[in-house]
C-alpha cells in the first residue's frame, strides 16, 4: 500500500474496505441498515449468512463484535473468537451475554447506555394507559363495530392518581417514575438496593410491592435473581384489578402462570413488550382483550436508532484508539 501514493478519488469510501477495522455483527440488530449507511467508510461490517463458519474472514482475526439482544453470546461462541476484545451490544440489557466468560477472557463490553431511556419510558407509560383504559381494544372496537345507536364499550380503570410499583429504578425506571408522577400517581419501587436520593417508598421485595400497587411496571435487568420474579404469588397479590407492564425482559415474568392468571381473571390485564421466547407469544394471549402485545420495540424510534449507531461507532473508535469506552458495562 505504501508504494503508490496516488491521490485517492474522494467519492470512493469503500476503496480501502479491506483495510478498515473488521466488525463482526451478530443477531441482525435493528440498527444494522442505518449502521451500514452511516459507517461503512469507517468499519468493515462482517455479517454471517448462516453460521459463523460461513464468514469469509477468519474468525481468529475478529477483535470487535456488535451483538443484538436476540443473539445469545455464549461461552462457546466466544470460544470461536480467540482474538475477541470488545463486545458492543445494541441493547441496554446484557442478559444475552456470558458476562463471566467475558470477564475471564478480559473482553470489554459496551452497552447502549441510557440512550433508550426516554423511548422505553414513553412506551411503558403508553402501554400502561392502553391496558388500563383499553385503548387498542377500543380502536379495534370502533373499526369493527356494527351500526348501532350508541357505542357500548366496557369501562376501563383510571390511571391518574393510582399507586404504581416500579420494579428496577435504573435510568428507565426513573424516567417512568418522573412521567407518572405528573399523572398524580403515587410511585413506589423495588430495586436491588434502596436509593437514598429518591423520595419514593422502597419495598425490599416484589410481593409486598405488588400487594400495595394498582400496577407493576417492570424495568429491571434479567439475571439469576430476577428471573421469574413476577410469579403466581405476586400476581395474586396484585389482584383482579391489578395490571402489569413489562418493558424489561420476558424472563422477569413466569409466563405460563401469567397466562393462567389472565385466563382465570386473577389479574386485570397485562401489557407486554417482551416475552420469554420471542417472537413466540403464548397463543392464549392473542385473543384476549385485556392484554396489549408489542414486538419488543419499546426502544426503537427513528431518532433513537441514529443515536444508537453513533454510540456503537464511538465505542468502537474509542477501543481502537485505546481510549476509555463511552458506555462501558461494568462486569467486575
Amino acid at each position, binding site marked *: 500500500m505504501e508504494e503508490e501514493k496516488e491521490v485517492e478519488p474522494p467519492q470512493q469510501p469503500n476503496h480501502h474496505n479491506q483495510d478498515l477495522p473488521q466488525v463482526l455483527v451478530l443477531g*441482525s440488530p435493528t440498527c444494522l441498515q442505518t449502521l451500514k449507511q452511516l459507517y461503512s467508510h469507517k468499519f468493515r461490517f462482517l455479517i454471517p449468512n448462516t453460521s459463523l463458519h460461513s464468514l469469509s474472514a477468519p474468525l481468529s482475526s475478529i477483535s470487535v463484535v456488535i451483538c443484538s439482544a436476540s443473539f445469545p453470546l455464549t461461552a462457546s461462541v466466544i470460544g470461536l473468537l480467540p482474538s475477541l476484545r470488545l463486545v458492543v451490544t445494541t441493547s441496554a440489557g446484557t442478559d444475552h451475554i456470558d458476562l463471566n466468560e467475558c470477564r475471564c477472557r478480559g473482553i470489554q463490553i459496551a452497552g447502549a447506555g441510557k440512550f433508550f431511556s426516554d423511548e422505553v419510558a414513553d412506551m411503558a*407509560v403508553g402501554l400502561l394507559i392502553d391496558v388500563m383504559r383499553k*385503548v*387498542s381494544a377500543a380502536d379495534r372496537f370502533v373499526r369493527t363495530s356494527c351500526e348501532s*345507536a350508541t357505542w357500548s*364499550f366496557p369501562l376501563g380503570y383510571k390511571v391518574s392518581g393510582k399507586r404504581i410499583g416500579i420494579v428496577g429504578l435504573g435510568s428507565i425506571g426513573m424516567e417512568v417514575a418522573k*412521567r407518572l408522577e*405528573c399523572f398524580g400517581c403515587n410511585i413506589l419501587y423495588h430495586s436491588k438496593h434502596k436509593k437514598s436520593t429518591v423520595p419514593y417508598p422502597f419495598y425490599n421485595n416484589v410481593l409486598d410491592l405488588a400487594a400495595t400497587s394498582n400496577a407493576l411496571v417492570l424495568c429491571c435487568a434479567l439475571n439469576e435473581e430476577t428471573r421469574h420474579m413476577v410469579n403466581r404469588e405476586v400476581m395474586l397479590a396484585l389482584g383482579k384489578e391489578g395490571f402489569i407492564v413489562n418493558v424489561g425482559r420476558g424472563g422477569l415474568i413466569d409466563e405460563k402462570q401469567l397466562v393462567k392468571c389472565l385466563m382465570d381473571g386473577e389479574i386485570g390485564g397485562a401489557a407486554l413488550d417482551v416475552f420469554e421466547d420471542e417472537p413466540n407469544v403464548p397463543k392464549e394471549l392473542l385473543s384476549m382483550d385485556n392484554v396489549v*402485545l408489542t414486538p419488543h420495540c419499546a426502544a426503537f424510534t427513528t431518532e433513537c436508532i441514529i443515536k444508537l449507531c453513533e454510540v456503537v461507532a464511538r465505542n468502537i473508535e474509542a477501543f481502537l484508539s485505546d481510549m476509555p469506552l463511552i458506555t462501558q458495562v461494568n462486569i467486575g
Partner: protein
Amino acid sequence: MESIGVLMPYPTFPYLEHHLQSRFNLLRASTNYTTSIRAAVVNAVHGADANFIDALPMLEIVCIYGIGLDKIDLRKCAERGIRVTNTPDVITDETADVAMALIISLLRRLCQCDLYVRSGNWKRQGSFPLTTKFSGKTVGILGLGRIGKAVAKRAEAFNCKICYHSRTVKTECGSYKFYPSVVELASNCDILVVACSLTVETHYIINRDVMNALGPKGVLINVGRGKHVDEAELVSALIEGRLGGAGLDVFHDEPDVSQELFGLDNVVLLPHIGSATVETRTAMADLVLANLEAHFLAKPLVTPVL
C-alpha cells in the same frame, strides 16, 4: 324525596340508576308523568334541547351526567329559571390520560404493534418498523382550561415544550408560549391537542388551513367534541398526506365514524371513552346525586352551571 319525579331518558350508569331509584321516583320516559317531573338527569351526548324542556312544565333542575354543555339549551333554562349542573373536574384527569394515550399510541403505533403480534407477523416478518419518538416534541394545546392544563402538565414530564391558543392569555402559565391564532399554533407544534369547549366560535375550528399548517409530520389529537374538526377535510388531509396522523376520541356524528378512516394506519379511533372509567363514572354519579339532594333541600348546588 321518594315522590319527586326524576326523568332519566337514556341509560347512564347502573350505580347512578340504582341510587336514583332508591332515593327518588325514577322515570325513564316522560309521556304520562310530565307534571310530576321536577328534575332531569341527562348525558352530555343527548343533552336537553328546547323541545325536551318545553315538554316538562314542572322541571326545576337539569343535572348533566357529563361535562359538555353544547347540547343543553341554556338560554331556555335561564328563561324558565331552571338550574343546570354538570360534572366538571372529575373527568379532567381521565380525559387528559386519554389524550396522552392517543399521542403515544399514534406516534409509537401501539395499535399496529399489537396487531402485528396478534396476526403472527412478528414471527413471519421480523422486527416492526421504526416509530416516532414522543419525548421532547412540541405539544400545542387548543384551550387551556382544566383539561388543557392537565394535558400540559403530563406532556411536560415527557420533556415536551408546551404552547397554546386560548381565548385569553393565561398569565399563570407563563412558561407556555401563547399563539394568537390556531393556525400559528398549528404551524409551531408537532402535536395539536383540542381540549376546548364546543361553542359557536369553536365549531370547525380545526379546518383545512389548520391541518395544512400542522403538516405531513404533525398530528391532531381530539378529546374535545367531534364538531371541533371539519371531519370531511380531516379525511382528505389524512388520505392525501397533508396531515401526518390523528388520534380521535370524538366524532362528528357518534357513533357514526367516516368509513374512510377505518382503512388508515395513521389514526387511532376511540369510542368517546375520555371519561369512561369505573372511578370517574362513580364520581360523576355522586355529583349528580349530591346536586339533586342539594337542590331539593334548598342548599347551594355543588357544581352549578346555571
